[in-house]
């Protein structure tokens, strides 16, 4: 229904119940940005090259600050705003790059699209000496997302992950021991038996694939394997893991715990149901920003009741694979000032910038050292930050393929709406369809 994806790329620090002030500030920033953009573009500023930095619309104020900090005597960085949906961001950037646009210098990329962009030759390779310097510090999950064909094509800026958020009173009432790993089945039943709900992302968009992917990986499977073979990758969703994932979705869809807007739900729709006017609240899988959202909007007593735990298991006893997302910075292959753009990208992804994004915008860093600093700052409960770090480190990325857009689209096509998912037919159907789509034998 909406084309706003809640993919990591579009997670904003500002909130569903965001204060009026933050709305004001966002707009004012956008206005200021646009204005400077026009001015800069207009005067060309004493011959200094202008580097365009395409950003997703979360944490824009911080981006703008760092654009200024990272501008030097030799070049200036100018922030350009992309639409909020991850799919739409990809479309806009890819169209410019396909047109070999020389003004696309630096771009915020959802990790799942790095492979596609690198494969099309749209990204500059990251120099080995720089990568060598930071490689040891970058968390494993994000490091994987920037590598394609054994080369590195982007720099991780922030890494995102999902955890299970819940109301402590609701879990208690259900008698669920949250100190131990819980399964989807337990969570759904606990909510249903106690008048609560379970919040997921079930709209037909990228984050629904995030959920499905996490469920499949949590059961030890993959949506596709051998993705480096491109169109000939092996489709594996028609497996026990795929069926286990479908069972969870079906169980929720048929349960009393399903939220009324399940088939169009996104990261924002379920936030409000944590503290509803009536009822005990919910269990919800959601990204890291949720904490800051509640910290800013609910009363201290309510916040006290907010619990967090590792992403639920698909199969009892098998470790869950929390989703990994975030933003990587890529440098355009057709840039007129490739070296300057690369230097700027390195500056933007430095530790201090990552820490600032975490503290002001709730977007968690991609390196060990930045994580240490976030913990020592004390703005977030330490166990929560630790949980995030473990989740990013042990989480499962979505398939890394040059044809990811096709894979994601095909899965959405066959698995939406959640109410239609059937373990007996959906994995089978979607495998067949995905194979045909990859081979170019079926329309998407």
């Amino acid at each position, binding site marked *: 229904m*909406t*084309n*706003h994806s*809640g993919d990591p790329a*579009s*997670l*904003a620090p*500002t*909130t*569903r*119940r*965001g*204060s*009026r002030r*933050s*709305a*004001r500030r*966002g*707009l*004012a920033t*956008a*206005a*200021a*940005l*646009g*204005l400077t*953009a*026009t001015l800069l573009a207009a005067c060309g500023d004493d011959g200094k090259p202008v580097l365009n930095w395409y950003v997703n*619309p*979360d944490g824009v104020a911080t981006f703008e600050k760092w654009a200024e900090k990272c501008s030097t005597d030799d070049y200036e960085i100018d922030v*350009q*705003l992309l*639409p*909020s949906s991850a799919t*739409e961001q990809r479309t*806009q*950037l890819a*169209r*410019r790059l*396909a*047109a*070999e646009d020389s003004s696309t210098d630096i771009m915020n990329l959802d990790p799942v699209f790095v492979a596609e962009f690198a494969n099309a030759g749209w990204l500059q390779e990251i120099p080995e000496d720089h990568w060598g310097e930071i490689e040891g510090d970058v968390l494993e999950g994000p490091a994987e997302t920037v590598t394609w064909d054994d080369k590195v094509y982007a720099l991780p800026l922030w890494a995102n992950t999902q955890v299970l958020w819940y109301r402590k009173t609701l879990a208690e009432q259900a008698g669920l021991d949250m100190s131990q790993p819980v399964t989807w089945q337990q969570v759904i039943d606990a909510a249903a038996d106690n008048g609560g709900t379970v919040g997921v992302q079930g709209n037909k968009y990228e984050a629904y694939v995030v959920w499905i992917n996490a469920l499949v990986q949590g059961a030890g499977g993959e949506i596709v394997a051998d993705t480096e073979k491109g169109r000939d990758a092996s489709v594996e969703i028609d497996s026990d893991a795929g069926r286990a994932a479908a069972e969870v979705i079906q169980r929720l869809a048929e349960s009393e715990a399903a939220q009324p807007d399940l088939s169009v739900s*996104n*990261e*924002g*729709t379920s936030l*409000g149901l944590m503290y509803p006017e009536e009822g005990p609240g919910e269990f919800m899988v959601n990204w890291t920003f949720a904490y800051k959202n509640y910290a800013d909007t609910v009363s201290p007593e309510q916040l006290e009741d907010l619990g967090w735990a590792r992403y639920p298991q698909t199969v009892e006893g098998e470790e869950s694979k929390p989703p990994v997302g975030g933003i990587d910075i890529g440098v355009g292959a057709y840039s007129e000032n490739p070296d300057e753009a690369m230097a700027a990208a390195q500056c933007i992804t430095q530790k201090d910038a990552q820490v600032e994004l975490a503290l002001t915008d709730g977007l968690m860093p991609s390196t060990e050292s930045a994580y240490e600093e976030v913990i020592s700052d004390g703005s977030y409960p330490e166990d929560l930050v630790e949980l995030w770090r473990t989740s990013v480190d042990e989480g499962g990325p979505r398939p890394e393929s040059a044809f990811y857009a096709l894979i994601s689209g095909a899965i959405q096509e066959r698995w939406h709406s959640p109410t239609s998912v059937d373990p007996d037919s959906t994995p089978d159907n979607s495998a067949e369809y995905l194979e045909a789509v990859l081979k170019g034998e079926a329309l998407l």
Partner: protein
Amino acid sequence: MKKFGIAVGVLVILVWCLLPVAWIISMSFKDELSITNGNPGFLPSDGTFAGWENYRAVWDNDQFRRAIFNSIGISLIATVLSVIVATLAAYAIARLEFTGKKLVLTMALAIAMFPVVSLVGPLFDMWRAFGIYDTWPGLIIPYMSFTLPLAIWTLSAFFREIPWEMEQAAQVDGATSWQAFRKVIVPLAAPGVFTAAILTFFFAWNDFVFGISLTSTEAARPIPASLAFFVGSDPFNRPASLLAAAAVIATIPIIVVVLIFQRKIVAGLTSGAVKG
């Protein structure tokens, strides 16, 4: 009895046409915060009346202002150019015998029916080759081409109603066809040209398919496309009340034009068939 029926009919028309307009206006006064929490009902519920807040926020948004600027600029240029070209063609069609006339009319009709989406793929590919992707000309050219059929039809219908004896008289007095066109017909045809211009402007202002396909930044993105990509403070849900305010602003030019020129527009749409 009959009068009563018509009065009821008028009322139905007014409600049908204006209720959604009233709704979007009402929506634009709902507080943005209350929208994300859910604020059903036609009118803003108690305490959620936002006043001019949303309008101010939208107007302060540079992307939106830029889109308005793009839309006005692109639509006006496309309209002027299209009407000039169409006037020449319509004159020829209404008044002159020449081979190829059928071809022009065929083409105009075929293009009026053309599925626009089927062109955007190849056009995107061509425009990036020509380097006019995401620029004003990249939109002006297709807008011109797609408004030409409407403009040619409307204008040739108008031209047919012009008292051509005057042109003949001018020609008898020794004027060439061209002089007769310029000195006699242009002033007479001006109202028709104006009507065609309004309809052409509406088309360009309304276009969405080209607007989203042939642009990728605010450099050329027109209002409809900009509305579809509008980002509020809540990234997950459309900022409905801000969008409503933006939509109202985008609709104001249309309403002004309609209020002033309603008679001309009706005449133009029905090609002069309706009197008064």
